[in-house]
């Protein structure tokens, strides 16, 4: 792809997300789609984190733990300490990143299925901790979290109070979409930088990378921390949208789904998780009409997809380009 084509496709994507989608939705009057699309945007942020851990050659089934953690950090800071939501957003991300450094230092030594299984267990640990700790209010969860307030810098209001808006769904959609764009921009930049190349060397052979002077321990912790930061931010916004968070808000199923989003989109493509999330989430929603056969059809389609496109949906585009 030439440089100009890249810029054009990014501009087209931004136009679709920020202009075409809201216009189309207000024209068709289906405002419920805002919620769906917001969820897709947030889930794809968390999936992008998982993708980044795939990029260093680790199978991460623990993103649900960080999403849950981020949600609780934000909720507790807002409800108990009266912080502004906008402050808790980076706070939740940073808290998760710090936690992931502490957890990641020992467990990132594990590889393959061992890492996958430990992160799976981590999701369960997070859920059980949320049940057991006094600060999280146990199984009752945290409810009636206030909507995000106004954000102003030097008296200039940048983001209005969500509670005063007549359409907070649109506001949440724009927020989530903006964050998604920012997040994928960060991942794209990271992957195409020197660090990205080094991460790719980890994916292929850690010993070899280490032997020519790559600081593998440092790199993998960094990648894992960025990944968890995304998970925390996504979880915090989810808590704000639903105005509640429970220990069961993010479970093993969610962690597995984050991973599946990456697989479906394609592990070799930065924008794979975004496409994967969109397809999986909408596919599941569309199949809702089939009632009791929803799961059967969904899983059958997934198996068939896997049989014919084991390298993800985006590999289709890649092969046609190679042939043409």
């Amino acid at each position, binding site marked *: 792809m030439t440089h100009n084509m890249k810029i054009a496709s990014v501009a087209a994507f931004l136009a679709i997300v920020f202009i075409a989608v809201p216009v189309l939705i207000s024209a068709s009057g289906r405002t419920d789609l805002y919620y769906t699309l917001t969820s897709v945007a947030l889930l794809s942020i968390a999936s992008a984190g998982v993708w980044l851990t795939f990029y260093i050659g680790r199978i991460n089934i623990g993103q649900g733990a960080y999403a849950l953690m981020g949600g609780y950090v934000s909720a507790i800071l807002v409800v108990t300490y009266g912080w502004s939501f906008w402050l808790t957003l980076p706070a939740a991300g940073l808290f998760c990143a710090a936690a992931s450094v502490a957890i990641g230092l020992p467990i990132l030594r594990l590889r393959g299925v061992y890492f996958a299984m430990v992160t799976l267990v981590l999701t369960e640990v997070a859920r059980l901790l949320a049940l057991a700790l006094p600060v999280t209010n146990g199984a009752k969860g945290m409810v009636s979290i206030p909507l995000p307030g106004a954000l102003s810098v030097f008296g200039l209001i940048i983001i209005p109070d969500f509670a005063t808006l007549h359409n907070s769904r649109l506001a949440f959609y724009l927020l989530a979409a903006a964050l998604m764009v920012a997040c994928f921009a960060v991942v794209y930049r990271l992957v195409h930088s020197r660090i990205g190349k080094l991460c790719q060397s980890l994916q292929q052979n850690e010993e070899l990378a280490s032997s020519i002077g790559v600081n593998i321990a440092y790199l993998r912790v960094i990648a894992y921390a960025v990944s968890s930061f995304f998970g925390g931010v996504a979880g915090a916004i989810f808590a704000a949208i639903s105005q509640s968070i429970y220990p069961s808000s993010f479970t093993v199923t969610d962690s597995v789904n984050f991973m*599946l989003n990456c697989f479906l989109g394609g592990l070799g493509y930065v924008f794979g998780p975004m496409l994967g999330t969109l397809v999986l989430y909408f596919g599941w929603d569309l199949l809702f009409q089939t009632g009791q*056969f929803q799961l059967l059809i969904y899983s059958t389609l997934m198996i068939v997809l896997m049989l014919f496109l084991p390298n993800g949906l985006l590999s289709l585009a890649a092969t046609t380009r190679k042939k043409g």
Partner: protein
Amino acid sequence: MEQVIANGFYLGAQYALIALGLTLIFALMNVLNFAHGQMYVLGGFISYTVYGQLGLPFVLALLASGVTLAVIGALMEKFLFRTVIKRSLREESTMLLAAATAFFFDAVILLIFGEKQRGVPKIVKGVFNDGGIIMPYDRMLVGVLALVFIAAFVLYMQYSRVGRAMRALAQDRVAAQLMGVKVDRYTMIGFAMGAMLAGIVGGLLVTITGVNSGIGGPISIKAFMMVMIGGAGVVGGAIAGGFILGMMESVGLTVLREYGDVTYLVIFAALMVFLSIRPNGLMGKPWG
């Protein structure tokens, strides 16, 4: 305390049998079979149908569970996993396939057998009681049967021609192929055996705990933990892991009772610490 240890042994014997199937599949193909718990549930429901509904002898029910699951496992390997492994650039892609088959089994089980908890009549009545230890006879029978199956499996792997071929495959796939082991065939047999073990445990346990369509996922997670404790892909490790988890669960539920429902939290935390000190589990080969 004797009671607690007896319960731990009983739990451990079953857990070990579950973990054996998972570890066998992993050793041969490097596939983490997410659908293992669902296979267990399917085995349970088949036994429930044959023994509980049709009223046929329990041995027949157990046989039906094992054979059905073995056939399913063989088909899964031949038509799904083999194809995906061949076509995919990264080995991990099989995980999506495994997760998808887990969902598929969940859906099928729910459609055929419904969401109700199902139980069957006891196979043996009565309770063993010598003052210290109380244990129903059916539990003892199931525990002993589980031990018999474990012993049979280990002996089969150790001394039969098929077992030898599978061990060679697990050790070094390419070398085994060069020595004339029919790789595709033995991989399929291995997958079928792993699935069969899951079905047999399901059939055994339906007589005690019953079965319902929702327990597949949690069983899979437990099986993963046992395999991790012992070391992935090692038969001895799976057995050790099963007994250790069974014992920890039994002791934990008694000792930690007054602190509320924290047994699993403690087990998980201990497991994470253990694995960060010993990344390959008790006897795992390096990097599985």
